[in-house]
């Protein structure tokens, strides 16, 4: 039977291919019980394979909590059953896509998920209801078109986002895409970014005033800045660190008002080192870099980073990309043009008003595609790829508002483009307006969801769209963002009207509610965070929107912004005007309050699980040891297949890997060269007898030394068998060595 691995062998970057092979082996090891469930959980998370609601084998069906009896008890993480459908997140750095990639994504959603592609609030895609066994094939097919899922989840550097207008924006200082691309590539799998206690998000913005990059709410963010030095214009970034949403949002702190472009990557690396070394590991709720910055203060954090920067070994990748900054400049498909009296299809004008952005390049525009709830079908995505080929080329973007953009459209082609979008049902107007609501998955698929963010978003969108023609312009331009819980994946803190899911116990029953969050600011890179005002039953949130927006229209003073209006009215008054909406009728009087939007089941929070967003805190050493285990397993496979040369090589590599993991406990930057690894291992652990007879002084170390100094002249079954066994013993000893190191550390005052 053919496999995708064989079929795509010559189309996948060898490194990506290796990584996916490793993951596939880890799946096999987990199935054989040879890989701990926690280690496997973090392993799959770092490849974007997430858990999903009900994967603990329980679901409330509206009457009772039903046990979902999957075919196996095997787990893919703590309390996460193997056969339960999961979510696959796919990183799309800066949201950049080409039509070939779009077609592949469409195919994969069809074959491995539910034929739906979900655009996330960080420019990724997510597939839902994916079987873990399908993920290696899925990843190979993505890799064949240059997409990786690596570090899409877990305690790692997540998707690097950027303004979707970068390169064509009228207000940008310069195009930040080459920098976003370089950062994503440089930090992907970087050794210094493997020991985090929590995720780390990076964003870039081309200017300070617009919202696009949302730098203020990121762990690390750069805003493009230029200055004149020695009569020459120099590029750099206002670098911010320690921002973040979550339950308690933090404003990012200014790390450097002008970080020269050549310092971007080394500084990022130094920050990663400091975060890995000093960031909280045990208490996940305090483990984002924002807490470290808050704890140390930005001055001390900066000092530590700059010290780290000084001792970083030089890496040519820090600046090599700068010589090619203009190489990837996008080229339009068609010459520039303007709309000059062409016939406009019905509905075009409304769409043009909200969904078209004039590029800084004369005669070209960006067309926004409003994607309801961020969901497209496979068919729509495939058709959209064809449309992009005709009108836009490779210049497609996803946005953090869960939409898509076609850039470099020659303006006179807009009516034809509109008709094509209409054909596939993606011609809705209102992009970036009050009807274009952002929502995280919430209770639909997320384990942490408390209330139905998507259900509420669909309901609000439907109601607002129905009356959009009558809405005052000041209301049309407001934004609504909804999260299913306080974790802010829907970015409710930075919208005009934000909501996040909570539950209330009323009349001895659970009732879905949303906290109303007001005062947030989307502009200025997420310039201000809103605050929760009052919790309101889910079913009355549409009334909240009506009341607040109607009062804004009625009492707005001159060109008063919504934020200013909210501030002027005051929280006390706002709470007063919404107070009666907090009342919940008895279940007997109106049972609809006791179920959530779009879900007829009687509401419960019993389906909530443990979130995996935080990932499992696995040390770098544990990963190294897992890699050693995998290598020795592959050695065993090669031995079984009669490939003794390969078996020997794998066994030797496994010992090196395990030795290296021990050395790294003391010497983080130990190079990969075998001579150096063995030498460092000998000096630090064998000669010093540091670990005592139990390990370094034992015969096990000799297995490594012997194989390193005298590779076999010929590869026989006996030799291969022996070294595979020795490697396994060496790995066991290395595990014991790690335990001893940990015990000693724990005894330190």
């Amino acid at each position: 039977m053919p496999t995708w691995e064989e079929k795509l062998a010559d189309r996948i970057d060898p490194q990506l291919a290796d990584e996916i092979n490793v993951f596939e082996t880890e799946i096999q090891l987990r199935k054989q019980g040879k890989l701990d469930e926690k280690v496997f959980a973090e392993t799959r998370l770092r490849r974007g394979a997430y858990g999903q609601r009900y994967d603990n084998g329980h679901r409330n069906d509206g009457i009772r909590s039903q046990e979902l009896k999957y075919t196996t008890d095997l787990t893919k993480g703590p309390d996460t059953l193997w056969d339960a459908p999961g979510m696959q997140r796919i990183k799309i750095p800066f949201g950049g896509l080409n039509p070939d990639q779009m077609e592949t994504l469409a195919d994969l959603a069809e074959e491995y998920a539910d034929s739906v592609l979900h655009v996330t609030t960080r420019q990724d895609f997510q597939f839902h209801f994916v079987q873990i066994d399908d993920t290696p094939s899925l990843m190979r097919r993505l890799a064949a078109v240059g997409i990786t899922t690596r570090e899409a989840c877990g305690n790692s550097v997540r998707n690097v986002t950027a303004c979707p207008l970068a390169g064509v924006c009228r207000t940008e200082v310069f195009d930040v895409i080459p920098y976003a691309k370089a950062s994503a590539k440089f930090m992907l799998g970087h050794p210094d970014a493997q020991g985090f206690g929590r995720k780390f998000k990076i964003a870039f913005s081309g200017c300070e005033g617009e919202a696009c990059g949302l730098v203020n709410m990121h762990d690390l963010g750069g805003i493009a800045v230029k200055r004149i030095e020695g009569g020459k214009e120099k590029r750099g970034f206002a670098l911010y660190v320690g921002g973040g949403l979550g339950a308690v949002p933090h404003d990012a702190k200014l790390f450097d008002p002008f970080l020269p472009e050549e310092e971007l990557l080394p500084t990022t690396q130094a920050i990663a080192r400091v975060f890995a070394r000093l960031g909280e590991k045990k208490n996940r709720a305090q483990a984002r870099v924002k807490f470290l910055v808050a704890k140390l203060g930005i001055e001390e954090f900066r000092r530590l980073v700059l010290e780290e920067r000084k001792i970083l070994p030089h890496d040519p990748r820090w600046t090599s990309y700068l010589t090619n900054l203009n190489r990837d400049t996008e080229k339009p498909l068609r010459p520039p043009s303007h709309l000059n009296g062409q016939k406009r299809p019905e509905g075009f004008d409304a769409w043009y008003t909200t969904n078209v952005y004039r590029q800084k390049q004369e005669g070209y525009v960006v067309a926004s595609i409003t994607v309801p709830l961020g969901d497209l079908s496979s068919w729509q995505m495939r058709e959209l790829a064809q449309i992009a080929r005709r009108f836009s080329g490779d210049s497609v973007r996803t946005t953090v508002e869960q939409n898509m953009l076609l850039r470099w459209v020659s303006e006179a082609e807009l009516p034809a483009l509109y008709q094509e979008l209409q054909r596939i049902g993606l011609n809705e107007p209102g992009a970036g307006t009050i009807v274009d609501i952002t929502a995280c998955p919430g209770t639909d698929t997320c384990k942490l969801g408390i209330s139905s963010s998507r259900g509420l978003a669909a309901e609000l969108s439907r109601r607002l769209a129905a009356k959009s023609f009558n809405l005052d312009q000041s209301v049309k331009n407001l934004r609504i963002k909804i999260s299913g819980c306080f974790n802010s994946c829907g970015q409710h803190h930075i919208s005009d009207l934000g909501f996040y899911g909570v539950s209330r116990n009323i009349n001895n029953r659970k009732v879905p509610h949303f906290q109303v969050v007001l005062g947030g600011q989307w502009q200025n890179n997420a310039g201000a965070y809103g605050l929760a005002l009052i919790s309101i039953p889910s079913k009355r949130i549409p009334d909240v929107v009506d009341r607040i927006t109607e009062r804004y229209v009625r009492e707005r003073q001159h060109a008063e912004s919504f934020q200013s209006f909210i501030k002027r009215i005051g929280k006390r008054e706002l709470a007063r005007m919404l107070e009666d909406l907090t009342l919940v009728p008895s279940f007997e009087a109106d049972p609809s309050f006791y179920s959530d939007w779009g879900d007829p089941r009687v509401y419960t929070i019993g389906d909530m699980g443990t979130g995996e967003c935080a990932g499992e805190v696995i040390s770098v050493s544990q990963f190294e040891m897992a890699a050693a285990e995998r290598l020795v397993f592959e050695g065993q496979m090669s031995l079984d297949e009669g490939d003794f040369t390969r078996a020997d090589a794998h066994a030797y590599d496994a010992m090196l890997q395990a030795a290296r993991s021990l050395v790294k406990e003391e010497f983080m930057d130990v190079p990969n060269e075998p001579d150096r690894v063995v030498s460092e291992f000998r000096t630090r652990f064998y000669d010093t007898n540091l670990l005592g007879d139990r390990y370094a002084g034992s015969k096990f170390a000799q297995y490594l030394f012997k194989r390193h100094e005298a590779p076999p002249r010929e590869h026989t079954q006996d030799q291969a068998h022996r070294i595979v066994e020795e490697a396994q013993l060496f790995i066991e000893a290395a595990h014991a060595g790690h335990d001893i190191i940990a015990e000693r550390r724990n005894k330190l005052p």
Partner: protein
Amino acid sequence: MELQRIGIKLFADSSAPEPVPVREFIPVFHSWIQKQAIENHLLIDVHNYSHIHNGPGILLVAQEGNFSIDMADGRMGLLYYRKKSGDDIAAVLKTALAACKLLESDPALGGRLRFRTDEMLVVTNDRLLAPNDDQTFAELKPSLDAALKRLLPERKFTFARSSVNPKDRLAIQVQIG
């Protein structure tokens, strides 16, 4: 051909006087989960995709396969996608037909839904094992014909590929006489 991923769509009769709004299937599918109403299936969850133009409509997720009130090409129908191995085409067909019967008799839908008996669509949901070409079509046709004859011995069947684009999945339109 050893295919795991097969989809079968049975079309709703569009001549019904009052078509069922797609969102009405949400409580129906939830009630199926309460009863675990489909034999040999672990029914897990319901998902509302009614906001997607000509999309999967309302989805009922099961471990063995997904059921949806599919709206592709603007035609409502029940689409069953088998995900797991273990069933041949006949068994997949049987499951799809059983789901249709359940829907037709569901009291919440009040007899407003009827499925056509003169056509169906069979989709191979695996571009590796079943590429959209003449060879796969020729290989699949006899087993599909045999499976249909076992289930509906009195009827006659004609088969046609609905697209020859190699990027599409192999989809076979079955006319039932």
